[in-house]
């Protein structure tokens, strides 16, 4: 009887634990929870290009490989650093030049050899920094020393510790370090120096070396169809809790977003993105959870301040007036159906460096005011005349101001925004002609520039004298920002920015970008203040009209548990499970 009572008690405990524990790390026996196949839907075009991630140019390749290998660290939805392959957080010397990295001692390759500091240093020195491999993101690991670009210096200290030494301070370099993944030295040496063999190496293209480094192991990849992974029972983060809890993880590529969403509705896939116009419908479905999360993407109207754009755009007041006339709330409500927020600089409100007090909020009430915009244009020296019952803005020669907006076709949202801009600017007397060109044409004929009658190769920023092949005034495009290290946006807004096609040159902005990346920036409070100043300056200068930061909607089958909606929702995905 006693045995029966104990058994009943144990059973009840088990039942309670399995009912209430969900997917918490301390949950009940693993065998109860490991089940099912998680199918993530992806629209064609977003598929990874290679699993040999060091050769990758696209974000998806890193994401695919990331399911089988953890980086040194990640961050949660509140930007707290979460250690992965690191045994403890990276130590930075007081002068900000030496980074000491200590990895866990239980990391293993598939052939059971330990993952060591030597592997990391080899990956950096012999692969990423090599001339023969041409790693795409080399610049992340370079610094400007005395006008010369040099690599940082990695060095092995002991089997689990290595250091990276810089000659200049860059406070945000640590985020690059957190993303580091290693290649197994003992395998990679076989291909070293031969880019063709390295590119085609079976071990790297099938991720057969990843050992216990990630929650899943590679199983199959049928291009344009599916990427299949199976549970890795040896995953180093699953030792205590038995994670991950899916038998298989599949990324299924579907032809269109309509079919993908139909697949979610029918229960054929577990997760996918949902377009704004379908969110309400999916929210009504009993078996689907829809999460709205911030993203890193934002839309801009770029102002051509080079000499082949309208001369008015070179004046801050004119740019401000135009930005003031374009209603961001309309874009949020009517075009994005509420799934966006107005943008005022390249730092979104979801970034830890955002400062609401400093930015000039052009384009939203009270600074969405067409009358005031007209006054500002008049104050800038431009006159109006009446034509057909409408006010028409005249340029310095007395002709009506007509601006050319160049953008790419194919997106309903871009089309709606272009038409809105046309309407809004018509209200302040500016006629806008919208020209749709293919992406490659936009880049080559409008964004790339060079000094006329020079031998320069066209680049995206060939200095203040350079102009594009074709004249333009406005462009509508999407950008991304790095939430933790937004200073990467210097490429767009600094005078020497490689993608500063707009021709915006401001020494104060340049100086702030430099200071953020200097020793001064080591002090987080000081960096926050500098970011605040930069956001204010950028929002006042309006090199571009920052329109909106977009939000993504992600639908899940309701039986998926453990999800923490937020900016980095997938940070704990290895802990997700089916109910």
């Amino acid at each position: 009887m006693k045995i029966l009572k104990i058994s009943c008690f144990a059973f009840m405990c088990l039942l309670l634990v399995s009912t209430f524990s969900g997917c918490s790390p301390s949950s009940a026996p693993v065998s109860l929870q490991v089940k099912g196949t998680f199918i993530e839907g992806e629209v064609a075009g977003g598929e990874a290009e290679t699993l040999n991630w060091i050769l990758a140019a696209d974000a998806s390749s890193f994401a695919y490989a990331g399911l089988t290998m953890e980086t040194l660290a990640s961050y949660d939805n509140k930007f707290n650093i979460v250690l992965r392959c690191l045994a403890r957080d990276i130590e930075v010397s007081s002068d900000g030049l030496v980074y000491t990295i200590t990895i866990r001692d239980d990391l293993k390759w598939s052939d059971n050899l330990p993952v060591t500091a030597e592997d990391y240093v080899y990956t950096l020195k012999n692969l990423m920094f090599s001339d023969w491999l041409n790693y795409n993101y080399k610049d992340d690991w370079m610094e400007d020393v005395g006008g010369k670009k040099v690599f940082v210096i990695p060095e092995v200290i002991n089997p689990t510790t290595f250091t990276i030494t810089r000659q200049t301070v860059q406070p945000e370099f640590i985020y690059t370090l957190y993303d580091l993944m290693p290649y197994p030295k003992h395998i990679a040496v076989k291909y070293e120096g031969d880019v063709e063999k390295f590119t085609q190496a079976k071990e790297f293209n099938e991720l057969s070396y990843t050992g216990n480094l990630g929650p899943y192991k590679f199983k199959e990849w049928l291009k344009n169809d599916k990427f299949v992974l199976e549970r890795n029972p040896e995953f180093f983060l699953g030792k205590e809790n038995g994670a991950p809890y899916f038998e298989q993880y599949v990324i299924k590529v579907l032809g269109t977003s309509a079919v993908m969403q139909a697949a979610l509705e029918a229960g054929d896939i577990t997760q996918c993105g949902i377009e704004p116009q379908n969110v309400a419908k999916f929210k009504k479905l009993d078996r689907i959870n829809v999460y709205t999360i911030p993203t890193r993407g934002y839309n801009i109207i770029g102002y051509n301040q080079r000499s082949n754009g309208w001369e008015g755009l070179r004046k801050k007041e004119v740019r401000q007036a135009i930005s003031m006339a374009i209603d961001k709330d309309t874009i949020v409500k009517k075009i994005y159906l509420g799934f966006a927020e107005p943008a005022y600089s390249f730092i979104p409100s979801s970034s830890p460096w955002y400062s609401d007090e400093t930015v000039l909020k052009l384009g939203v009430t009270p600074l969405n005011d067409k009358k005031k915009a007209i006054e500002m244009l008049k104050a800038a020296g431009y006159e109006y005349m009446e034509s057909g019952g409408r006010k028409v803005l005249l340029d310095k020669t007395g002709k009506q101001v007509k601006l050319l907006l160049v953008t790419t076709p194919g997106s309903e949202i871009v089309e709606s925004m272009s038409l809105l801009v046309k309407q809004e600017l018509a209200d302040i007397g500016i006629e806008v002609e919208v020209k749709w060109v293919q992406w490659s044409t936009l880049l080559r004929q409008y964004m790339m520039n060079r000094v006329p009658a020079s031998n320069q190769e066209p680049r995206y920023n060939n200095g203040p004298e350079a102009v594009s092949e074709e004249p333009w005034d406005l462009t509508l495009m999407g950008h991304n920002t790095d939430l933790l290290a937004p200073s990467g946006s210097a490429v767009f807004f600094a005078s020497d920015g490689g993608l500063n096609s707009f021709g915006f040159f401001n020494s104060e902005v340049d100086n702030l970008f430099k200071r953020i990346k200097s020793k001064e920036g080591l002090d987080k409070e000081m960096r926050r203040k500098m970011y605040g100043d930069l956001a204010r300056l950028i929002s006042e200068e309006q090199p571009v009209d920052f329109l909106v930061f977009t939000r993504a909607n992600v639908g899940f089958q309701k039986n998926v548990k453990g999800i923490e909606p937020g900016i980095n929702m997938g940070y704990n995905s290895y802990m997700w499970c089916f109910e």
Partner: protein
Amino acid sequence: MRNYIIKRFIYSIIIAWGILTVTFILLRVGPSSAVDRYILNFAAKGQNVESVKQAIEARYGLDKPLYEQYFLYMGNLLQGNWGWSLSTSMPVMDLIASHWIYSFQLILLATIFAIFVGVGLGIISAVKQNTKFDYTISVLSFIGISIPGFWLGLMLIMVFAVQFGVFKTYYDTSYPVWSLENLRQLILPVITLGTGELAGYVRYTRSSMLDNLRKEFVTTARAKGLPEHLVIGKHVLSNAVLPLVTIIMFDLGSVVFGGAYLTEIVFGIPGLGRVSFSAIFANDYPVVVAITLIGTFLVLIINLATDILYTYLDPRIRYD
């Protein structure tokens, strides 16, 4: 006949080589580069876009002069090496080998479906001219010709997969190609791809049959007391089928080149249509050139097969 086939085959190789060369050159001299779509990616990470572009081009030999790339490619092609796919990181040959079967099965089944149902309905419609059946089939075939395959596919998914749950919303490659499950999941894609062709065949068959039904040899056959099924099946159909063969073979060529890829996209079938679609958008030159070459060859072979078929269907036709 043998000499004719050999001659046509040699012509086909020359035409294919010409098309391959033109495609190769057009892809290289066009404004797009394999790197274009990553530019904002690189920029967002603060990369020097130009140096990254040069690095990628150097890695895949795209920085070499065009003539050098061309001769290198042709040399490799003659040795059976179709190159390395830039966007999928695998040999082009392997990529095609792992995907062709999905296009082939879809095109084959859709064509069989369209021919049998379309020709069958066309014959009945002609024999029962101006009856309710004929009118109904005529109206349905006009609808079938007019419906865009893309839309039809989506509607079939919404009704039969989402509402009734009879089929999956997408094609599942987990099932073996030679299995009943696979055959079952191809029902909606085959209907989608085959409907337009089927409707066309109904109209062509009906028209061709009616032309022949009015001819004197049919009256003679009937006067001789031949049973109606022999009159229709042996005399009328065998004469009506010749123009149909041209149309069916022409359609087959169009489907291989374009029609199937929309169906593949809608149903998530990883066939060559999708491979080429993705490759074009990724500026994956080796794949685009290879698939163009295969498509060209297929069309040329289909044309040759059509010509040969004529000689069997109509012994009066000779090429000697």
